[in-house]
């Protein structure tokens, strides 16, 4: 059973597919964009013939039929770089989002169900942790530990669990206060049972929301790091493309096909995730944005 609060933005009722689409235009739009990008990432390498590591043409070629986005400064196909960059960013973003959500779920549930000193210290840790600016600490780490993809995922995950934990915990506390939960506990229900039967269903929307938010933040951080030069050299990345593209910004029209596509890809990915998140959020409750 959900906690349903009727508020501004709640359009309740009919859940037919097109009805939903009309009622949540933002979510729909965001979902379409995200789907397009996911398709690009998954199917792109099969559909598109070029490998972004190969030297397939002369350097700095403008767009043509053979190379729709032209080539970069050493003769690698830019569209291929874009496609593979999409994979990298999505991989890292989704991985971090997943790890973050799992960790948040674990910590919040244990804090709610066990309570006591453990719950208290988890919350203090979360509050303190949230004060650390993520980019700066991740910069510190990858300045010393070479930024391979696993390292990036781990470092970014460090900052993906705190926000979710707080939200899940506050919702979890509310669920805990419900009569049926108290009853279940009085009857001796075990912790896993409670978690599965009572808490998880109530937390699903927040879990999804948290996942979206953390994925979005992770992609943002990863591209910022790549822009600053801290990316895995064996994986193509949007941020690196943008950094290289900036070098050639003043040179005629190179920026149109070098700088613009990854910027658009990055922007659209982030916006689509934000739209879905915002749509889902205004469905449930504004104050959950804490």
């Amino acid at each position, binding site marked *: 059973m959900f906690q349903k609060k009727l508020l501004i933005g709640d359009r309740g009722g009919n859940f037919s597919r097109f009805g939903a689409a009309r009622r949540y235009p933002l979510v729909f739009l965001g979902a379409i964009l995200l789907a397009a990008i996911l398709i690009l990432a998954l199917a792109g390498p099969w559909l598109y013939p070029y490998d972004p590591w190969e030297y397939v043409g002369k350097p700095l070629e403008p767009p043509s039929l053979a190379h729709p986005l032209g080539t970069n400064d050493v003769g690698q196909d830019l569209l291929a770089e874009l496609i593979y960059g999409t994979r990298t960013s999505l991989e890292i973003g989704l991985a971090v989002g997943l790890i973050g959500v799992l960790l948040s779920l674990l910590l919040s549930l244990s804090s709610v169900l066990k309570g006591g000193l453990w719950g208290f210290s988890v919350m203090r840790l979360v509050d303190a942790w949230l004060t650390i600016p993520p980019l700066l600490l991740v910069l510190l780490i990858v300045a*010393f530990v070479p930024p391979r993809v696993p390292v990036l995922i781990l470092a970014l995950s460090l900052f993906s669990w705190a926000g979710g934990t707080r939200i899940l915990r506050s919702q979890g506390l509310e669920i805990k206060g419900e009569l049926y939960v108290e009853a279940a506990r009085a009857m001796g229900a075990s912790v896993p049972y409670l978690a599965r039967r009572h808490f998880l269903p109530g937390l699903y929307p927040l879990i999804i929301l948290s996942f979206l938010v953390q994925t979005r933040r992770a992609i943002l951080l990863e591209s910022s790091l790549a822009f600053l030069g801290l990316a895995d050299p064996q994986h193509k990345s949007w941020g690196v493309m943008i950094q290289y593209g900036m070098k050639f910004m003043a040179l005629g029209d190179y920026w149109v096909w070098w700088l613009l596509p990854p910027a658009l890809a990055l922007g659209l990915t982030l916006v689509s995730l934000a739209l879905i998140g915002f749509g889902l959020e205004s469905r449930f409750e*504004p104050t959950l944005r804490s």
Partner: protein
Amino acid sequence: MSRVLGYLFVLIFILGLNFALPRLLPGDPLTALVGEQDLILTPEFRQELRQRYGLDQPLSQQFVHYLDNLLHGDLGYSFYHQAPVLTVIGPALLWTTLLCGVSFLLSTGLGVWLGVELALQRTRSWAATAVGFCLVFESLPGFLVGMALLLVFSLKLGLFPFFGALEVVPRVSRPVAFGLGVLWHLILPTVTLVLAELPSVALLVRASMLKVLRAPFVLAARARGLGEARIKYRYQARNALLPLITRLGLRFGLLWAVAVPVEVVFAYPGAGQLLFQALLKRDYPLIQGLLLVSILAVLAGNALAEWGYRLADPRVRSQA
């Protein structure tokens, strides 16, 4: 009290990380202290450095030594700049503080105003588009917005400069020109940061305003016949602002972080640009010092903001 403990824990964690990371570098630990200038040092100088930094001592002693240095303001020595890290960081931090300070004030002020209006006029058509714009800009990375502005206004239209924080004019010019030069260089980076921060402030204020709009105390105020403007700002906005104020410290920290790539885009000589250059050259002492100072500044800001909030909100105060 528990909050203080929380901050303390974070502080120790960061200091420990700052201490441990350089020593995780493979090879000679001196590399971490010297950076890329390794090639230029003579063996005698290397030995002297080893002694000065106590690299032969056990780790715990080194950590104590390190903490002691920090307390005395010794953040290390940058061999690239041939100067103590603190000296190198100083001027850059000032510029970043200027940029972030101005952006923070503008984005908070304008954001509050926009959020209030968006909530009150939510039925108008422009409100929906504005919310849309806010959503988009909130999710876009700052450096993308910055690049777009640089491309259009500096490169194509030639209205704004490409680098620096002030005009490099001969000293004969008046201080007014100096100030205006600083302003001119400040505009695009500030607009970028404001565009990055304002949307989230506006959306947050809008959301909490929406909750407050129908609150009983507002109804009571209206019943007493108070003017709309007064109700809007003294009653509604003030209460709606509380969630914003709790996050003031957090916001400032985030702004600082967003400023890093934005400064790189505009070659603005602040802490962000300095950090970028230090990363390129692997000037480890500088990287460490800069990040440590930044993180500590943000933490301090957070702590201050939280303390301020506790003072400001009578409900919390009465509980404490």
